[in-house]
Structures are given as C-alpha cells and as structure tokens.
C-alpha cells in the first residue's frame, strides 16, 4: 500500500514537474516519458513556442547560385548580336513585282522620239546657260565685296576688323521658300492626322530611342537594350521571390513570346 502511494505521489510529482516543465518551455521531445505522446510534441512546434526557425546553411548559397545561373543565361543570350533594323526603302515591296501592274509601253512614232531627243538637247543648253549666268552673277558679287573691303581697309583699320568679325546671331538662318500660291491672311488650317512610325520597326526605333519598353512580336529576337530595359522596368521596391523572377526571365527569352494584352 505504501509502494502504491509512493508510486502515486511520484507519478503526481513527475506529472507536476512535467507540467511545470511544459509551462517553462523546457520540454525535450526527445525524452520519451510515458506521459507525452507524439501528438503532444506536434502541438508544441516552433511557431507555437515563438522560437526563430533555424536556417539551413545551404539556403543563402542556393539563392546565390540560382541568381548566378540566371545572370549567366542572360549574358549568353545578350551576346547574340542584335538584328539590324532593315531599311525599308531598300526592300522592293511585293506590290511592285506584281505582273498585273506592268504597263504596255506605247510605240512612239519617229517624229515623237526625234522631238523628244531635240527637246532634251535644248533643255541641257538652257540649263547650262542658266548655270553660267548664276556663276557669273556670284563672281560679280564677290568682286564687289572684295572691292568694298579694300576700300574700307584704306579708310580705317578698326572698322575693317569689325567688318571681318563673323556674326554669331546670323546662323541658323531660316526663311520660308516660295510656294505656288501666296499665304491666305488669317487662315485657320484644319487639323490633320500624322502617322508617325507606322511600320513595326519604326515603332521599335522610336520607342528604343525614347527609352520606353517595347512589346515584342512573336518570332523576333530581343535586342540587348530592350532586355535591360525590360528588366529595369521590372525592378519594384521590395524583394521579389526568386521563382517569379526566373519565370519572367524565361518568358522573355523564349523565341516565341505569347502575345498578351497590355
């Protein structure tokens, strides 16, 4: 009977100690006491006890490795030389090679072809005369100016020097050239539409030069500038999860970008 009592007291004491230990937070889950079941240990996990999680040493290294791998991928892709924007004026559009558009050249009579040849010769003579007259007029004007400067030099050195100084306010000099009809006084011109950079490349060139982000059409390689621009635009305050960054970058470097609305 005394052994039972002592056992009971011991049990109570140990339970009390256990509970006190529980309250003090010194419970060691490794200690397998008959009073604690594994279920009880789950209830006493880290968040409940407000203990900071022990970080594994592999984590920061793993993040660094991931970032380095991404940077290497970027560099490899950036090393690709950017494709040149084609000069559209040098590419004959397909419309011009259409056979239905070819005109039947008319047969010219002998008189007609003769008159054309004679007119061309007359024209060249006329233009030559015009040119010689222009050259002569310019030479006369230059001679007049030289004479004026010589006379001025004979008069006064200071004024001569002042005449030779260039006028900084003269250039750039603009003057509206002659049109077919004179300007209408107080004319209110109607507004028109201006198509700026209608071609794909025109848009790209304009956007790249102004520093904006460019939406890529599928099937085109991205140029270095645009990649950096896109990445710089993605920099938001606060740290972004690595997985999301990887996803975005991989989307950028695919050959076929899915078109999504802006």
């Amino acid at each position, binding site marked *: 009977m005394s052994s039972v009592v002592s056992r009971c007291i011991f049990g109570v004491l140990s339970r009390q100690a256990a509970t006190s230990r529980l309250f003090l937070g010194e419970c060691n889950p490794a200690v397998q006491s008959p009073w604690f079941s594994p279920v009880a240990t789950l209830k006493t996990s880290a968040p409940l006890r407000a203990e900071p999680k022990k970080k594994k040493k592999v984590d920061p290294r793993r993040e660094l490795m991931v970032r380095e791998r991404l940077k290497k991928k970027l560099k490899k892709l950036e090393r690709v030389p950017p494709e040149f924007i084609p000069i559209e004026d040098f590419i004959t559009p397909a419309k*011009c090679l*259409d056979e*239905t*558009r*070819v*005109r039947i*050249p*008319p047969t010219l009579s002998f008189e007609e072809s003769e008159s*054309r040849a004679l*007119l061309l010769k*007359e*024209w060249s003579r*006329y233009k030559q005369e015009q040119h010689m007259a*222009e050259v002569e*007029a*310019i030479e*006369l*004007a230059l*001679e*007049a*100016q030289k*004479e*004026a*400067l010589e*006379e*001025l*030099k*004979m*008069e*006064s*050195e*200071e*004024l*001569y*020097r*002042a*005449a*030779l*100084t*260039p*006028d900084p306010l*003269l250039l750039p*000099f603009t*003057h*509206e050239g*002659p*049109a*077919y*009809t*004179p*300007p*209408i*006084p107080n004319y209110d011109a109607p507004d028109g539409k201006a198509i700026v950079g209608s071609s794909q490349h025109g848009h790209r060139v304009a956007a790249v030069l102004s520093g904006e982000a460019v939406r890529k059409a599928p099937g085109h390689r991205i140029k270095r500038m645009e990649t950096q621009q896109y990445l710089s635009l993605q920099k938001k305050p606060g740290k972004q999860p690595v997985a999301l960054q990887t996803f975005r970058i991989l989307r950028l470097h695919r050959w076929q970008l899915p078109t999504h609305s802006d």
Partner: protein
Amino acid sequence: MAAPCRKMASRSFSRLLCYFSSTAVGSGACRRFSVTPIDRATPLGSTAADRATSPWSLMAAVCLQRLPVISADCSPIEQRFKQMLQQMELEKSLVSDHELRLLEDAEKMSRRQAADYDSDEEDRGDQEIMMTQDLEDTWEQRLKNFHPAPRVRADVDEDLSSAQRCLADSLVLLAEQQVGAEKLWLLPQAAWQEGETLRQTAERALDSVTAAGVKATFLGNAPCGVYKYKLPKAARTEGSVGRKVFFFKAILADGAPGSAPTAPLLWVKKSELQEYLKPAYMTKVDRFILNL
C-alpha cells in the same frame, strides 16, 4: 618728329599684321593677332589719326530685299520639258492601286451590261458602296471648295510702294533722300558716326526710313559693295573731298509692316532699278543685287 614717325610706323606695322592675318585662316586669327602691345599703345588714336588724314567721309547704306513669295511661272521651254517629262514618267511607271480599281470597276460595268449577266454570281455582301469614279468626284469637289489666294493681282503689282507687289520676283527697297542740293532715289543711307560700326550705321539708316515694325536680318558684318563719289567743288571742305557709301545686305522677314513709313519708299525689281538710280550708282549696285 619722333611722335608722327612712331605713329606712322605703328600704323604701317599694324597694317602689315592685318594683311598677313587676313590671309590666315578665318577672321578669328585676325582678331587674336591684332591684340599686340604696339596696337594697344594707340587704340583710338590710330583711328582718329586715320580718319583725320582721310579725305573721304563714310556712309553706310542698306540693300533690303524682299525675297519671292511664290514660284515664278515656267518659261515656254520649261513648260514643254515639264510636259514631256511627265509623259515619259507615266510610260515608265507601274499601274497604281487607284488605276487598278478604276480598271476593275470598268470591267464590272461592262460585265453587267453584257447580255449573259448573272447577278447572283457577282453580287456579294462585301460589295463596295463607293465606286472609284465617285471617289474621284468627291476629291475634285473638295479641291474646288478650297480657295487659294490669287497668285497675281494686277492692281497691287502696279502700286510701287507696296511690299506685296510682284510676288514672284525679289524686290529692293529704295528711298528718296536729300543728297547735297537735290533729292535722289537711292538705297537708304546714313552718315557714319564715331563709336559705331558701319553695320550699325546701316541699321540706323533702315530704321530712319521705314516704319517701326519692319524686321530685317542683316547678312553679316561685312559690306557687299562700295560706291565712292567726289563732292562738287563748291561743297568740298578740308575734311571731306568725297564720300564712300558702303552697302550692307538685309533680307526682309515676313510680317505686317504696321504703321506707314516716314519717307517715300519704293519696292522695285532689279529690271526697274535703272529708271530710278543714277547710272554710275547703278553700275555699282547692279553687281551685288542678285536676281537669281
């Protein structure tokens, strides 16, 4: 003895310097070169000495030009050549979209008028509402609704004092000024005063003759021509035997003239200059007024 010798020596030396520096590249070199201790010793004195010994009094005049506002009419050979060129270009060209549409429409019309026309085959839901000919008519209508200003106005052309006459030619400004005993038509001029450059004199001449709102751009600091004449023996003094008039070119900027001019003015073409200017003056002025 020593002082005038020194002055003469300094003047000739500075002239030598200027001669060498004027052949150098650019007038900037000339400017730098001229700041020498010799020149610095007698800056104003040399000018005063120069001016005192010279028998010529200086004047500056302005050649203000109003450039053409409209393109000139084509001469007969230019017209013939223009037509021939247009014809040749049309023959060498390809058929344009508009012409193709016209041809298609013509074909459709001819098919419709044919006896065996099956309208069900031709008629589709996406038929164009506008025929090409109607499009052309609308364009013609729009062109007719726009009224440009007339190119030639005979009444304005005859008014010699208006700056809007003969819009296809370049005009020169003439003013009637008192020269000695008589009033002459010449390019507006003014006498040079101490302390200003000749260009400033020319600007002053222009301001004195025209209204306040006239804007002109002077083309550089250098004169474009010179006319020197000796005064009649009665008017000659010790200081001035004759006068040298330096001309400066200016271009009239577009804008309303504003108030009326102070002196009688004329805007004349180069061909009309002969009627107003004296022959000797005319030969000098004719050289630098370009009618290109």
